[in-house]
């Protein structure tokens, strides 16, 4: 071993007995030289001892049986829908039981009532946004009323606006000096992040509802962007900017990815 590892590098291995002989020797030297580090090590051991007192309540056999049944139903439904279109869909619903069918019918009634009520009220937005979540906890099957063209425009607008934020972050590497030098406006960045975050979930639902590989890829990209936006939107001040550190290295890559994907959604 050529380099003497830091105490912090050795601590996890020491706590779990995973140090090599050389590493253990270095670690023992640290402990012998500093009562503070010795105390630190003991405290970490005590913390892990508290964590060992964790108990796990176990689910009953009914949970496992229900899970197996649900997945069996699901597999049957998906294989039938692959081979038989609308007829298979009806069979799948039957096999899932009357309860599920009733739930679906109620959801459909609610949706139709919602649409009817919505049409009676003058809309502020030109694009209707209505979703039916059919037994979302079981299947995540979503039906959307947003047209493909509209979705494309939304994705494009979202990526364009995100790319501006990512470009600012990527260009400065989020270092405080660089950010100050280029008048990085944290208030504006936060506001933009908040606005975009408001659109994120809706957009992801729409993209996942389509289930095509392109849509899933876009949804994954939106999820990546979301993690960055969340961090920016929660910053209290410029001095907290270092907390966005884990994303530094990926910033440029993410920005490039957004730029490439933008080309795919040109009108």
């Amino acid at each position, binding site marked *: 071993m050529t380099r003497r590892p830091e105490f912090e590098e050795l601590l*996890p291995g020491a706590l779990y007995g995973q140090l090599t002989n050389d590493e253990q020797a270095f670690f023992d030297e640290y402990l012998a030289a500093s009562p503070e580090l010795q105390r630190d090590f003991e405290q970490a051991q005590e913390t892990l001892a*508290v964590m060992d*007192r964790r108990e796990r309540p176990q689910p009953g056999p009914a949970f496992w049986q229900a899970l197996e049944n649900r997945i069996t139903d699901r597999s049957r439904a998906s294989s039938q829908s692959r081979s038989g279109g609308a007829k298979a869909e009806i069979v799948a619903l039957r096999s899932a039981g009357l309860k599920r069918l009733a739930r679906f019918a109620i959801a459909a009634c609610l949706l139709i009532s919602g649409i009817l009520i919505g049409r009676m009220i003058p809309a502020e937005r030109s694009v209707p946004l209505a979703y039916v979540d059919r037994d979302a906890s079981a299947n995540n099957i979503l039906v959307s009323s947003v047209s493909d063209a509209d979705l494309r425009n939304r994705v494009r607008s979202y990526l364009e606006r995100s790319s501006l934020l990512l470009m600012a972050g990527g260009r400065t590497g989020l270092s405080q000096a660089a950010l100050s030098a280029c008048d990085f406006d944290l208030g504006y960045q936060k506001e933009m992040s908040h606005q975009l975050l408001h659109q994120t979930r809706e957009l992801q639902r729409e993209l996942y509802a389509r289930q095509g590989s392109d849509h899933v890829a876009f949804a994954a990209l939106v999820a990546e962007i979301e993690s960055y936006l969340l961090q920016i939107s929660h910053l209290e001040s410029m001095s907290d900017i270092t907390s966005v550190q884990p994303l530094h290295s990926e910033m440029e890559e993410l920005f490039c990815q957004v730029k490439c994907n933008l080309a795919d959604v040109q009108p």
Partner: protein
Amino acid sequence: MQSRQEESDSRSIQVGSAFSELLRQHRQQVYNMAFDLTGDQAEAEDLVQDVFIKVFNALASFRGDAKPSTWLYRITVNAFIDRSRTKAFAASRQSEDFRDDRSYQSYDLPEHGASNPESQTASGQIQQHISLALATLSPQQRAVFVMRHYQHLALKEIGQNLGISEGTVKSLLFRAIRKLQHALSFYRKELGLEEKQ
């Protein structure tokens, strides 16, 4: 057409029986991992369901390059991180709604002596405090900690499971332990361990 249908049915049966076997053999491992990650039985059950649905959908394409347990760890952690992202976003929306309400905090750790002995048993309180301490970790830190501390995986193995270097595993684990140390410091006082200083 008929033969294609039969072929598809037979494949479904094969996948179905392989899945049942996998579920029986690994369900405890997946549930334990899910509970350690989420810290809540209902959430763990939801996560287990997500994981096995993903497993079922991907089973036909599983080539056996990795051990099933490794594959399941990876799916569980990824599903957990996905769910955390969704929850974090929901929380961000909620915090916007209550931006001026200072009383809103998602992960309030208890003050020393602030527990209510009438409403909870001591054991229940410990479990709650441990869950809250785990909730202070980022999803990645929690995944690494859970895999090492509760699933007893070697650091190298954790790195392979999560697709990160061993150095990153050590760093995440170190930060996780530090946060837990801080979050549970009141316990050391309670247990008299602080007097050693």
